């Protein structure tokens, strides 16, 4: 088996920039998923904040083998580059018919870095049904400048994603994405393993860029989400264009002239 990381292409990277998340369905093998249910039930020993990934987990440990899955390793490298730091990790357990839904939130504290981002890996070792209360997330919410649970008043937004997925699914989310664990209304305990990563290199062209000029890249970046207000939806495109400029180093990239138009301040006098 070829264990080389499988990098994201530009279309998938653009999807991440627009949605604030990237979903890899059933990429983790069944034997690792089965092992995970035992490992996660016993917790995973914590690592100090900011531990280099290479030193965070023993090579034969469960987290190390999860992160070696080629699609997982490739997505992580595409998003934050080589040698990231492990910010922290956590096992989330939703007991059967127990607990409340989390309020909608972004993790940590408000984080408005325009040219860098952390990612969080969310791994689901078992099939997640709607009843099991999979993670709720709001596509395209990651660039909104809000602080943690200040968004808790929002219960439902059109186009929200109530995760339903096959076993072995991994989702990478941008640090700003609004999300929350839903109430588990099933008879099955639900597990999720989360690891937050901090980049240590500039996040520029770290993915497979051979399709950088594919028209689907622009289409992904220009997507509209149903919960966007009419006017603010335009600002979302503006901010996405700026992020894509940072990630590609292309200072002229734009979507429908949104950035270019309002940056135009000619200084030349008439002849």
């Amino acid at each position, binding site marked *: 088996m070829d264990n080389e990381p499988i990098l994201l292409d530009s279309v998938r990277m653009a999807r991440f920039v627009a949605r604030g998340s990237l979903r890899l369905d059933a990429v983790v093998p069944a034997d690792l998923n089965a092992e995970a249910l035992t490992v996660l039930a016993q917790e995973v020993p914590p690592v100090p904040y900011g531990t280099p990934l290479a030193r965070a987990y023993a090579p034969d440990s469960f987290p190390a083998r999860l992160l070696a899955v080629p699609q997982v390793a490739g997505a992580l490298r595409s998003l934050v580059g080589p040698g990231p730091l492990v910010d922290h990790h956590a096992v989330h357990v939703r007991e059967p018919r127990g607990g409340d839904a989390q309020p909608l939130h972004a993790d940590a504290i408000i984080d408005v870095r325009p040219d860098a981002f952390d990612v969080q890996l969310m791994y689901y070792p078992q099939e997640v049904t709607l009843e099991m209360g999979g993670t709720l997330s709001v596509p395209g919410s990651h660039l909104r400048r809000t602080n943690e649970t200040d968004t808790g008043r929002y219960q439902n937004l*059109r186009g929200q994603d109530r995760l339903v997925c096959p076993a072995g699914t991994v989702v990478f989310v941008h640090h700003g994405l609004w999300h929350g664990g839903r109430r588990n209304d099933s008879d099955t305990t639900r597990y999720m393993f989360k690891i937050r990563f901090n980049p240590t290199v500039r996040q520029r062209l770290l993915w497979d860029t051979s399709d950088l000029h594919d028209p689907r890249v622009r289409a992904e970046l220009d997507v509209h989400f149903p919960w966007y207000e009419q006017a603010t939806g335009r600002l979302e495109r503006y901010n996405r264009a700026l992020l894509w400029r940072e990630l590609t180093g292309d200072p002229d990239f734009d979507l429908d002239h949104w950035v270019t138009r309002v940056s135009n301040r000619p200084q030349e006098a008439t002849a």
Partner: protein
Amino acid sequence: MTADPRTDTAPAPVLRQQVLVLYLSTSALDSEVLGWSRYDGTGRTSPTTGDGAEPPYGTGLDALKDGWRLIQAAQLLPPHPGHEYDVSFLKHEFFLERIERIERVEDPRTGA
């Protein structure tokens, strides 16, 4: 002597507030519903995060037609200078209420 109807044995109606928060596409109350939250003072339902896929009404006006009463609308505030292109909270938030009659009062602290 005539009986005072106010001192009759029939219990006074017990009223509780239900709150519906709608997030609309523009500042107009008749624009499209994009988000919604509910709080039920009767205790009959327990709305929570992520419990629905479809909005209860198509527009804010549709909620009025169904008996909800508007009690607060978000102000229209100009962007803070230098932050005109920032995105943050949903802008067009409308609070509505409905008063419901309930039969029996439970102590919210004990549930009894």
